[in-house]
């Protein structure tokens, strides 16, 4: 089963008026695979990710998630989005709800679970990210790293087939980056299929099954991390990685 793609992008295009941000992306992510997407700002990484659950409407191409095309008309996008968890750069926790309230909202509203059922599942998800003791705490009282872990719990509680991470550590203090990456590694080990846009080159190199380098709205190069980081084929990849690793 590990070879069947959970996510398939075919000729994906996105344009804002005359500005083309995605110029035909072809990508398949297999079940259980973790793919990291790297590249300079404005290369279309986040746009591609946000098309995968149609937070952005693609202007061309097809997106297939777990065998269902999500780009066609008459698609129940709300039903499909439950299969696709998303974690944002800015966490986007609901400030008026406790950590547990954040995690259980969709269970109660979308899945129609009772409060008791939702709380039990929500606590289990918070436990997976190491925050069971923070269930009653509001987001404003949590550190950035803790907030992002609650956001991950909010996504995994729906048992998605695919998780999208949009620069999940870019808004964090350096000392809390590690705890979020640790949760992501554990998630990967549990067999979750993950597509991760990141600037954490160390994490991509050591944890990813495959690394995609994007520039100018297209995939320039992809391959296992040791190839991309060790022996990049394209000049643009080399230039980008040199700039990044020279800072780190």
């Amino acid at each position, binding site marked *: 089963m590990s070879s069947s793609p959970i996510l398939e992008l075919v000729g994906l295009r996105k344009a804002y008026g005359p500005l083309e941000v995605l110029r035909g992306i072809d990508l398949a992510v297999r079940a259980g695979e973790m793919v990291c997407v790297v590249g300079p700002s404005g290369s279309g990484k986040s746009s591609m990710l946000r098309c995968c659950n149609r937070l952005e409407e693609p202007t061309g191409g097809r997106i297939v998630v777990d065998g269902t095309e999500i780009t066609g008309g008459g698609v129940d996008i709300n039903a499909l*989005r439950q299969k*696709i968890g998303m974690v944002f750069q800015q966490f*986007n926790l*609901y400030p008026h709800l406790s950590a547990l309230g954040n995690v259980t*909202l*969709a269970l109660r509203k*979308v899945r129609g679970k009772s409060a008791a059922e939702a709380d039990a599942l929500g606590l289990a998800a918070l436990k997976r990210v190491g925050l069971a003791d923070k269930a009653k705490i509001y987001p404003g009282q949590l550190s950035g790293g803790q907030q992002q872990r609650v956001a991950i719990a909010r*996504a995994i509680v729906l048992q998605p087939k695919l998780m999208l991470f949009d620069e999940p550590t870019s808004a964090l203090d350096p000392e809390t980056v590690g705890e979020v990456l640790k949760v992501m590694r554990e998630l990967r080990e549990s067999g979750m299929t993950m597509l991760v846009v990141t600037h954490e080159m160390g994490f991509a190199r050591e944890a990813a099954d495959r690394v995609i380098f994007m520039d100018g709205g297209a995939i320039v190069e992809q391959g296992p991390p040791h190839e991309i980081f060790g022996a990049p084929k394209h000049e643009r990849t080399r230039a980008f990685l040199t700039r990044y690793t020279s800072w780190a």
Partner: protein
Amino acid sequence: MDGLARLLDTFFNTEVAARYWPDILAGVWITIGVGVAVTATGLALGFALAILRAKQTPWFSIPIVMFADIMRALPPLIIIIVFFFAFPLIGISMSAFTATWLSLSLVLAAYAEESLWGAILSLPRGQSEAARSTGLTWWQTMCAVILPQALRLALPPLTNRVIAVSKNVALGSVVALSEVLNNAQSATSTAGNPTPLTMAAAAYLAIFIPAMILARRMENRMQWRV
């Protein structure tokens, strides 16, 4: 009579007060009744308009913006006069109560819509994106994520406006609504003594000071838990 005695006799005349307090009290009930009715319908309509505007379709947005701008620009007195005196000419007659209630409801709705819409706009886009990404519908997102936060932000301007518009129930006196101020003015003319106006002032304080305390309590209770 010295000055203090004259002041007391003119503005705090117990004999006049004893004669006219039933009129003032009757006016108090009218003022409270219209005020409560205006608050309920005005807020309900204003919230409905703000939510429709959040749909961001021109078919809703343009008429809502026009309505809000016109209702906020016109003096409420003119709206009451139009409803009471002009509408009967085109076959729509209404009581003084209805004309005052309807006019002030529309004015409050315009302000409430603007306050809530401003609060909705000020929320980060990521809030609704996060909710939609977990499968919530537009409406579920509005009810469970956007409105609870927007109402909290809009509460101080809303409570101010509710009090300001409720005080305008006094404008109903131009269409002979027998609210506090109107009854007090009639009593003042009949008695030839302004003590009923003092009583009206006391009545306003008795109605609105508790309303303000209630508003402040609500604002304190809904502060962010940080």
